[in-house]
């Protein structure tokens, strides 16, 4: 093969590569682009090309009680689940990353298990668990806010453990020893030395935990009580019935919220390094 021919084949290869990469990116982004476009249509029917453009659908969301309530519930759930998930997950990650003991691998797998179990199975198993607890203890469990929140904490924990463990992997322990030699007690050492150094990992864990909880659909579907819906469930139920600019506007707000959260997180820790 001549050098020219080989260069040609490399150029051809590069074209094919870029073409396929572009197609993949399009497949990932197209739905978001089109749902955003639809949110600005003037007419209610999603037919192309649009007859004109309008912003009124965004104002209309405020009157849709289901979306307002769903958003408020999802936000509360996300914040609470993330805070509790961090409070439980960060110490657990410290333990898994720092100590060598028998059954450590098994423990790690258990903490990551909620990521592996299918969402529908998470939902069904927690549902029957809530039924059984309700029968055994004679208190309301099924469909209550805290039962739902407990489920969300369980799906936040594996993200926290994973990301904080990763950020502890490159940690120089002599710095902690230095602090203790200088007279700091373990608690001071943790808050003044360890915590600031693993902050990027914790911020990333908080973001991933929050969006996992905020966007969860399958598990929540089984756990919400009557008259209570999270935002993803409200969106799903609306879409089962129809697609129009109102739901598109709701989608745009969700895209903006999540995108904003990611941009803020990116200032603390480069997203490309933690995913």
């Amino acid at each position, binding site marked *: 093969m001549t050098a020219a021919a080989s260069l040609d084949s490399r150029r051809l290869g590069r074209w094919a590569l870029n073409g396929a990469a572009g197609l993949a990116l399009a497949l*990932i982004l197209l739905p978001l682009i089109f749902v955003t476009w639809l949110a600005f249509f003037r007419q209610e029917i999603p037919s192309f090309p649009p007859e004109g453009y309008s912003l009124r659908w965004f104002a209309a969301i405020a009157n849709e009680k289901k979306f307002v309530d769903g958003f408020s519930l999802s936000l509360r759930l996300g914040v609470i689940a993330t805070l509790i998930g961090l409070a439980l997950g960060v110490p657990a990650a410290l333990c898994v990353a720092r100590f060598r*003991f028998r059954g450590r691998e098994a423990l790690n797998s258990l903490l990551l298990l909620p990521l592996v179990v299918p969402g529908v199975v998470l939902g069904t198993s927690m549902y029957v668990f809530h039924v059984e607890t309700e029968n055994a203890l004679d208190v309301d469990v099924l469909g209550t806010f805290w039962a739902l929140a407990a489920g969300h904490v369980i799906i936040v924990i594996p993200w926290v453990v994973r990301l904080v463990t990763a950020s502890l992997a490159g940690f120089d322990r002599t710095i902690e020893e230095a602090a203790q030699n200088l007279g700091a007690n373990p608690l001071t050492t943790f808050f003044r030395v360890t915590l600031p150094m693993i902050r990027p990992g914790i911020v990333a864990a908080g973001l991933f935990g929050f*969006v996992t909880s905020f966007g969860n659909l399958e598990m929540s*579907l089984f756990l919400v009580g009557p008259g209570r819906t999270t935002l993803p469930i409200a*969106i799903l139920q609306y879409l*089962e019935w129809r697609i129009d600019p109102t739901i598109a506007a709701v*989608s745009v707000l969700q895209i903006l919220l999540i995108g904003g959260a990611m941009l803020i997180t990116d200032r603390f820790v480069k997203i490309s390094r933690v995913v």
Partner: protein
Amino acid sequence: MAVASTATTTTTTASARLIAAEERGGARLTAASLVAPATVLVAIGLLIPLVILFRYSLNEFVAQRKLMVEAVTIANYVKFFTDPYYVNILVRTLRVSVTVTAICLVLGFPLAYVLARTQSRFKNLLIMLVVLPLFVGNAVRAAGWMTLFGSKGAINATLMGLGVISTPIEIMYTETAVIIGIAAVNLPFMVLSLQSVIEGISRDVEEAAFSLGANPLAMFRRVLWPLALPGVLAGTILTFILGMNAYATPVLLGGPKFQMMGPLVYGQFAGVNNWPFGAAISFILMTATLLLTVAANLIVQRRYKR
């Protein structure tokens, strides 16, 4: 003198050992108190529920009274595998998942490669664009596809405007729509799994292959692919699992008549209240996913570890 010094050494080592043991004991206590809360929550909140769910799957269901009766029977599992209706749903779920995984691999590898190798200052932004849809939620993305696929949607409007077709083609509520939708949902996972592995492969080995006369295809097949295999395996498994367990996409793009395993489980619980059968389907779904994942691992290991 010599004896005395030995004695002192012994005492020192003994006391050092004692301190070490005390420290180890303390460390054990610290470790336990750190990890216990999260572990207990996951164990109570997930392991016990899974056990109860499995127990439920062995119960009986009295259809007339819509009641669950305690029993120990495999009737629910037998019912699933002897009724062609349910077997078809399992087969369809497998078919969709395998197709989706293949699409994700073919399209995801090039994108992952470009992202891993690019020197562009927009690299971080590009990666965020890949990650963002991951977090936006499946229902929202399905809404996007509904805008594209509908009879008056963007695709049909474009094709009819160009005169390619005269009547709208049906894309919504077909298997194709579901496959495209799930593939788009799963692509970011595949891309991210592959990208991290490709970034770890030195560019020099590619250049070495080229300078030895390999064309791009040969370089890919003989150098890049084998080196990227761990990422390929991780991405493939993740994509396959997510495909098997898809819920929102088949419900919204497949319509009420298009059944996959995820929606089927929900229907048994919420629709007809048949908890034992729903529990059995949950376990069949989980087992099928796990078995195929393990099988894929074994096949790849056997072929490439030698």
